[in-house]
């Protein structure tokens, strides 16, 4: 029996598209623990945010499962990040390019998951390009160059199964290299 589950973890800031990405490749729709955003002020806001995890899986021919977990995006749930990556195969980091400071987010997540990434691997997906870009692909690449890290980094549409497959293929190549 495997003590560690065979799982790939999707992380990144709120709105990067983690839930969609998992849904784009999984065999069943993801289970989410989404709740409404609150302000504590007058109006309730419609948006939802993941507070514990998203979960789904890919079923392989021989019956084995690869579990797909999405972490909550907000920093105060970082205890979930460490619970979810424990024993995992690798990390998919999605960063939405329309975030007010996408490069800072890239740095933040790479730092937060550094130990796990060094043991396994990471692939970075830049989502939501072409609407309100706050950085360029080159900015992201330069960030990695400055960090001295050569990680796969691709522009992706978080809802496209073809694009998410590119991410996962790269992650597999990194894990097994």
């Amino acid at each position, binding site marked *: 029996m495997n003590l560690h589950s*065979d799982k790939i973890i999707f992380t990144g800031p709120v709105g990067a598209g983690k839930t969609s990405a998992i849904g784009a490749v999984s065999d069943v729709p993801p289970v989410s623990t989404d709740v409404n955003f609150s302000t504590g002020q007058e109006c309730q806001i419609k948006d939802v945010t993941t507070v514990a995890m998203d979960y789904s899986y890919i079923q*392989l*021919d021989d019956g084995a499962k*690869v579990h797909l977990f999405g972490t909550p995006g907000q920093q105060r749930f970082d205890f979930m990040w460490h619970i979810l990556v424990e024993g995992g195969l690798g990390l998919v980091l999605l960063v939405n390019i329309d975030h007010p400071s996408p490069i800072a987010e890239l740095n933040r997540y790479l730092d937060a998951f550094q130990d796990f990434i060094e043991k396994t691997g990471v692939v970075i997906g830049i989502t939501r390009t072409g609407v309100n870009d706050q950085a360029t692909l080159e900015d992201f690449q330069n960030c990695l160059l400055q960090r001295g890290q*050569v990680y796969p980094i691709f522009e992706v549409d978080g809802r496209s199964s073809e694009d998410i497959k590119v991410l996962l*293929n790269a992650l*597999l190549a990194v894990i097994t290299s």
Partner: protein
Amino acid sequence: MDIPRRLKISAIGLFDTELKVLQVAQAMLEHEEINSELIENNHEESAIVVLDYDSESGKQVFATMRESQVKLVFSSAQPINIKNTITLPKPIRVHTLKEILTQICRQLYDYIDKYEHNQTQASSSAQSGAAGKTQNIFLHLFDAKNNATILKLTHSSGANIYVNGQDKTLYVAGDSNILDAFIAAAAADINAQVLTADAFQQQVRGLSPLALDGELWRSGISCSQGQLLPGHQADVPVKLRSWPNFSRQGFKPEFFKVAAQMAKRAESLEALSRLTQVQLDVIIDFYNAAFALGLIESHQPQAAQPAQTRELSSQRKSLLGKLAQRLRMA
């Protein structure tokens, strides 16, 4: 624009004070080893045109000038944001003007050097072979980017592509099938002709620019056919400094393994082929295209180090193999 070695600077619509300042500044250029002369009211033949935008004549002439001409504008108002136009706010000081003129002239000299070099290259290759170098589209594009040249590439069917190695753009006269035709074409079916910047601008009028890097990548992975870029060797350690943007630029399935290995440590292409079990031809396709995009760094030969693969249980390896099958791109 014909740029002779002696740089002509013309003054349009300058008031007395500014004209005197310009005369003094221009005379000082000699100390910067810049050969120039000041001419009045003949902007057609000038390398640099100095205009006073506050004067009627300055404004009028400015409006008629080509984008490619270098314009130094004296103005009391806002800077003018047009290509090749520098705005100096009044009052104009001799020293400031001299410094700016020096910078402009030096850049013009660099441009002249490159232009003359390209002309020489174009004429010597026209003499040496059938209308220029006989090579596939990838190598033409690579040369254009490397040498910052401006080219017109013609296919034997009559289709044309315009390549600007200076601002790294590419223009197609027609639809994208034309690019495919060039990629599939034999080297002998492609003719290359060097163009001046002005001729280029005229011929691409109305066409939309594409990024040169995108076509470099596409042609690199398709046209290399096992041939390394000239001067490159398969036994020299190389390393990937940045992954290509596979999701948008295209890839072959083996590229993931190759890139992952190349990103880890410096290896020769031959060693990579052994490590990844990928054919050397395919690795060369990847290498050429990645090199053309500036994604490869060369390394000095290192003492052989044992290749370290991550330790995975056989169970996990088998699972990952099956997952890879499942995720295989169509």
